[in-house]
């Protein structure tokens, strides 16, 4: 967000981009179609299903160029313009091609104070890219995001709209990148909150393997 505050310019999106996918590629399989039909029946009006179908399309095609958005709209049976409005509203829908792993580093208030930017800059130098860019090998895209609701375990990041990696340190970031490079998904580590430790005897989740007990939050280098 920092750049946008200094230089608040909204660029015009391209109005007639060349399609990325051919017509042959732009199809849902029978199985996907059945799934879509089921979702459509779960809402009072079919519009409701568009978010799930966009999600499905993103998993299938990797990202959502206009022709894919149009495909989802046709499949759900709503106007293309409406689907496009929804797809551009949510930043989690990727309108441009991203790296295999998208690292969404939180730099919102709590994470910022606890070193969100330190983590971001560490990743920038480690991966050799700037925020918003993708590594040459197409593996990583680095992004800055607003609060992801895990402030208690700040600083944190999210991997490709999925796994949260919390309580970040340089070592943890190194380990994360190694794991991802090996093609593995990082194990989810539950970081407990102070009150869990103090009052609830740990309050461990029964569905998670890895735990880390709450510790005092770090303080950003810049704040220090």
């Amino acid at each position, binding site marked *: 967000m920092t750049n946008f505050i200094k*230089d608040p310019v*909204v660029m*015009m999106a391209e109005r007639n981009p060349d399609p990325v996918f051919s017509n042959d590629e732009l199809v849902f399989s029978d199985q996907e179609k059945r799934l879509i039909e089921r979702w459509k029946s779960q809402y009072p009006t079919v519009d409701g299903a568009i978010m799930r179908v966009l999600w499905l399309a993103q998993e299938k095609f990797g990202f959502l160029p206009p022709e894919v958005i149009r495909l989802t709209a046709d499949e759900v049976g709503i106007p293309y313009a409406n689907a496009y409005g929804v797809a551009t*509203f949510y930043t989690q829908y990727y309108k441009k091609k991203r790296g295999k792993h998208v690292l969404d580093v939180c730099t919102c208030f709590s994470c910022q104070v606890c070193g969100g930017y330190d983590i971001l800059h560490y990743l920038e130098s480690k991966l050799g890219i700037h925020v918003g860019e993708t590594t040459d090998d197409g593996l990583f895209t680095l992004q800055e995001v607003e609060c992801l609701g895990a402030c208690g375990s700040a600083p944190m990041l999210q991997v490709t709209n999925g796994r949260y990696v919390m309580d970040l340190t340089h070592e943890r970031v190194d380990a994360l990148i190694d794991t991802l490079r090996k093609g593995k998904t990082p194990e989810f580590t539950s970081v407990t909150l102070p009150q869990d430790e103090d009052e609830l005897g740990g309050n461990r989740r029964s569905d998670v393997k890895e735990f880390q007990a709450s510790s005092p939050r770090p303080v950003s280098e810049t704040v220090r």
Partner: protein
Amino acid sequence: MAKITIDKTIFEFEGDQPSLLQFCLDREIELPHFCYHPAMSAPANCRQCLVEIGNPERDRETGQIMVDEEGNEVIRFFPKLMTSCSENISDGLVVRTQRSSDLVRRAQKDNLEFLLINHPLDCPICDQAGHCPLQNQAYKYGPEGSRFEFRKVSKPKHIRLGPRVVLDAERCINCTRCTRFTSEISKSHQLTIVERSVKNYPMTPPGIEFDEPYSMNVIDICPVGALTSEDFRFKARVWEMSSTPSITTTNAKGSNCYYWVKDNRVLKITPRTNMNVNEFWLADDDRLDYERFNDDRPPGPTVDGEASSWEDGYARAAHILGNVDGNRIAFLGSAHASVEDNYLLARLAEKLGTAAPMYIEHVEVGSGDDWLRTDDRAPNASGCARLGFTVADADLFGPRLKGGEIDVLYVLEDDPVSTGLCTSDDLHGVSVILHHYNESNQTLPLATVSLPAATVVETVGTFVNIDGHAQRVRPAKAIRGVNRTLAMEIGRSRADQHGTPFDRWYNEENLINCQPGWVSVPGVANALGLDMPTTNPKAIMAELASTNSAFEGATYSAMGEYGIRLSEIGETV
């Protein structure tokens, strides 16, 4: 009866009611608002129409309305302000608007400050300035200044959304009226709001052009200058033009409109609300149909292709008509001309012992839709039919001309050659008397006498639309020469929302040397020595309304600004 109290005034109501905002507006209680439009759903996203709303408090045990020591009902107000556009009214409701509540005044002011944070304030170069709801309401209800000290967000500017509509995204306040228009009213689904928060703006999705035939309606409903007309951009400021209520004539719907005139040139056409005809809307064709009023106009009457005076034109026409047998004359009325003009033509034909005029049909199959455009591309075919005129048949008409059955063809405001009723060859040896609007009229080169006719923006008259709705037109601009009826009508009908008296209308530029049919047809008749008083159109309609059942009740006062629905032909009332 149910009652509602607004700023201490009690209003009674019965039955279903619109939203609180509309209820207030209908009673001339102004509430500032942007996103609400009476024809569309209310998303309540601009937050400008906030009011305080309360209900009488009831005793929990008895269910009785509680009263204080002075006997007044105790009102429990909602803790937060409510948007009046999305509020239904119910019995006993108590409302405080900005007229009586400091809280509401403060909220409206703060809301406007927010709306203006990223607004470019480029009113000096904005087409909307002068009739801009944001400008007006900021002036009336807004803060004196802004406390925002950062750079405003820059967004895409002068983007052609389609061939006729230009977007300036910085001015947009994201009310979504334009996108709701395309999804709820025109159903073209060509617009959506893209992106989010300070970055959002209305746009077509990639690969789509905003080219639907009703696209320009979003220009009027946009409460700021974000959407402007490609055609009209930067041509004139609103306060430099006068606007006249009238109807459009590209088809048989007779959509109600305003003609905007500067220096006797029509510069733009905008819709005028008439719930019986076009509601709030106007087709793009109708809006862009103004150049023919300004350009391509004849310099004056001609006789044998030479410029002549009006008197000489009338005299020559009379000479031609007076020297042939009545049944060797053919009269063509016109679906472009008013009922009055056609009626006078019928009177002339009758006096000469000629069969009733026929008229040319201008149907282009497929050019219409189920909404405001009809296949019939002329405004008054119904009027002609109600006068008893029949449609001229090209299969019969050409051969009759060619066969030498007709010596004189008298054409009122139409073009038999370009419409294919006959060919130029067919007219060989036929004397043609032609009332015409434009120089490009293809019958004009063959006319013995040509009499330039006043167009719909220069005359007074009545048109009957495809549904039998009879409506008046009023002169939006002056013609050359003096005509008391026209001058009076111009003065009476100018709904100048912005101008001052005695400007623009009467400058001498761009005046066209033409005459309304109700002047020139009697002109010819009188030159023939026939008794046809040069009467005014109002008197003609009064006569028709009382003598011809097809026009029963269609007097000028009854038609007023919104017209009246005539009964079906043949139906007795």
